[in-house]
């Protein structure tokens, strides 16, 4: 009896709460097209999930796209590349962001959001250079080759005055300080790309296969890009790798490419991506890149992270397809890339690759 007395208002309150909140959640789906001040006729909700590396860029893209298309809501959940691809394949999201392109097994399966029989494609839309940052007293400039870098991070070179480093930097006065190599302690696409670069360019030293987890148990671990940057900044004799846009005031090392030392620049990063061939034996419209890590062209900076937008060739729901197409087209456009460059320091898509992405997007429906 007492339960009834208190239970009834409680039930009403809960029911009212649910009713109100479900109203709010549905708001985005109410399609009121036309007669707006803006020329846009798009309306609806786009859901994406995936790589956290492009989280900051997605924020900027969402803001830009929603300003231009006030009736559209874009959601991006930075759950990680693997989870993003899983959610997309299962049909939970309209597109995925991923630091690595789809595997052959994933492509062999079916995609729940895509029209029956059609597949999904990888589109490179996010290029982020990875900088090698260091903090050594008395050293402002550092030249380094892949072999030495691999040995430092694998823990075989332990002092800054090591002969290998001295040989590359004849003009620098290197102290006898111990090296503290700082890596990411959380799983990250940055680690995977860094590891992939060293695995390809210094295979004798870097024997572990590239994965999101740092492969060696040496050096210092720090959480997130900001954690690595702060550890390098506050430490003694430290070196680390981080998204170039986050390097701040720290000195960045020049990488040996061919016979020259190349400093990171967005242009050089875009250049190496533009010069990379597509992965062989895939559909013609799948733009998965075989990054040319071993490049010898001194105009290219090979330590980059490329993230893909994964979308359907043909959506089961044509209206939804048009929405996603518009959004990804905006991301890959010059305007979208500029927005992301300002917000997240990405290297914009250039030349042939930009044209290729646009051409593939034109066929998406």
């Amino acid at each position, binding site marked *: 009896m007492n*339960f009834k007395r208190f239970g009834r208002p409680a039930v009403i309150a809960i029911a009212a709460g649910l009713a109100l909140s479900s109203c709010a959640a549905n708001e985005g789906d109410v399609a009121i097209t036309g007669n707006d001040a803006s020329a846009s006729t798009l309306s609806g909700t786009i859901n994406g999930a995936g790589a956290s590396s492009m989280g900051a860029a997605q924020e900027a893209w969402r803001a830009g796209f929603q300003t231009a298309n006030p009736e559209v809501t874009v959601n991006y959940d930075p759950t990680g590349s693997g989870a993003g691809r899983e959610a997309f394949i299962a049909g939970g999201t309209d597109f995925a962001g991923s630091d690595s392109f789809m595997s052959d097994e994933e492509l062999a399966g079916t995609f729940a959001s895509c029209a029956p029989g059609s597949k999904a494609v990888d589109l490179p839309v996010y290029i982020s250079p990875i900088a090698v940052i260091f903090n050594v007293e008395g050293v402002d400039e550092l030249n380094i080759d892949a072999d030495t870098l691999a040995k430092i991070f694998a823990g075989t070179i332990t002092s800054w005055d090591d002969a290998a480093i001295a040989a590359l930097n004849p003009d620098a006065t290197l102290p006898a300080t111990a*090296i503290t190599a700082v890596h990411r302690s*959380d799983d990250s696409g940055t680690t995977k790309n860094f590891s992939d670069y060293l695995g390809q360019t210094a295979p004798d030293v870097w024997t572990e296969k590239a994965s999101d987890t740092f492969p060696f148990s040496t050096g*210092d671990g720090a*959480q997130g890009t900001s*954690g690595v940057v702060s550890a390098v900044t506050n430490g003694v*004799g430290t070196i680390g790798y981080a998204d170039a846009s986050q390097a701040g005031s720290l000195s960045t090392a020049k990488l040996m490419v061919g016979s020259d030392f190349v400093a990171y620049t967005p242009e050089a990063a875009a250049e190496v991506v533009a010069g990379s061939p597509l992965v062989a034996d895939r559909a013609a419209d799948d733009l998965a890149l075989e990054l040319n890590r071993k490049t010898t062209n001194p105009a290219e900076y090979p330590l980059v992270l490329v993230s893909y937008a994964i979308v359907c060739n043909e959506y089961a729901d044509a209206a939804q397809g048009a929405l996603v197409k518009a959004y990804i087209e905006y991301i890959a456009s010059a305007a979208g890339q500029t927005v992301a460059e300002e917000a997240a320091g990405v290297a914009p898509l250039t030349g042939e690759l930009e044209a290729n992405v646009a051409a593939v997007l034109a066929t998406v429906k």
Partner: protein
Amino acid sequence: MTTVAATTIKARQRPGDRIFSSATVIAGSLILAVLAAVAIFLLVESLPAFVADPSAFDGDITNFWSYVGPLVFGTVYSAILALIMAVPVAIGIALFISHFAPRKLAQGLGYLIDLLAAVPSVVFGLWGITVLAPLLQPFYTTLVDWFGWFLPFAGPVSGTGRTILTVSVVLAVMILPIITAICREIFLQTPLLHEEAALALGATRWEMIRMAVLPFGLPGIISASMLGLGRALGETMAVAMVLSPSPNVFFQLLTSQNSNTIAANIALNFPEAHGVGVNILLATGLMLFVVTLLVNMLARIVINSRKAFSGAN
């Protein structure tokens, strides 16, 4: 008279009584239900981890137990180190407040200590990486140079200071307010008669504290420490931010390689986890649950066995 008796009987059946008693019963069973729900969730979600394929783990690790072992070690190691640092200081502060400080100062100091408990752990984490770690690093270098032959201080020294010792210092600061607050309350409860008797026998203040206050407060000190230990075991954010982790067991306190704690490991790897990786992380959560349970049970046993010897009876 009969009418009066009837009214008193009626008064006993007031709805307020029944509502209140059923409310307490509901509250009491709710906590059990929540605990059971958490335990069942962890257990069910953990099952796939125990039979996970070796490829689901990184590096040389091939099964769940070799994955969780170093994490359990790191969790207990850092928490116990924190306790070793925090308990003596907490007892000192509590004694100062209860027996030494002038009343006005004691009150202010008490509030200040309680305020420390209100600082979010993220703030402690930020303080750890930006202030404490760089501050302690030169000290660590000296320690390794002089005492490197002693295993916990063996080198090579970390260049960033983000070691398990730094984490323990941060944890010690975080659990200090809990331990201090409880100890202070316990010390204030010491029977005045005991204290006066000790003083009357010619004891100095320190001797009085040793003979009357501390024996009386011992069970309280132990339960306060266990509460602090519980917080240190489960602390996530500060550890995740400060510690430089590595997937093995390390007794060294000052190197770049440190055993991670369970909670911090979950926080670090959950955002990018998928598939069976999520189950593995949840299974480590189950292990933390078990460790915490064991510690609490141990504390109960210790307190119960000590009760007889304290001045409390």
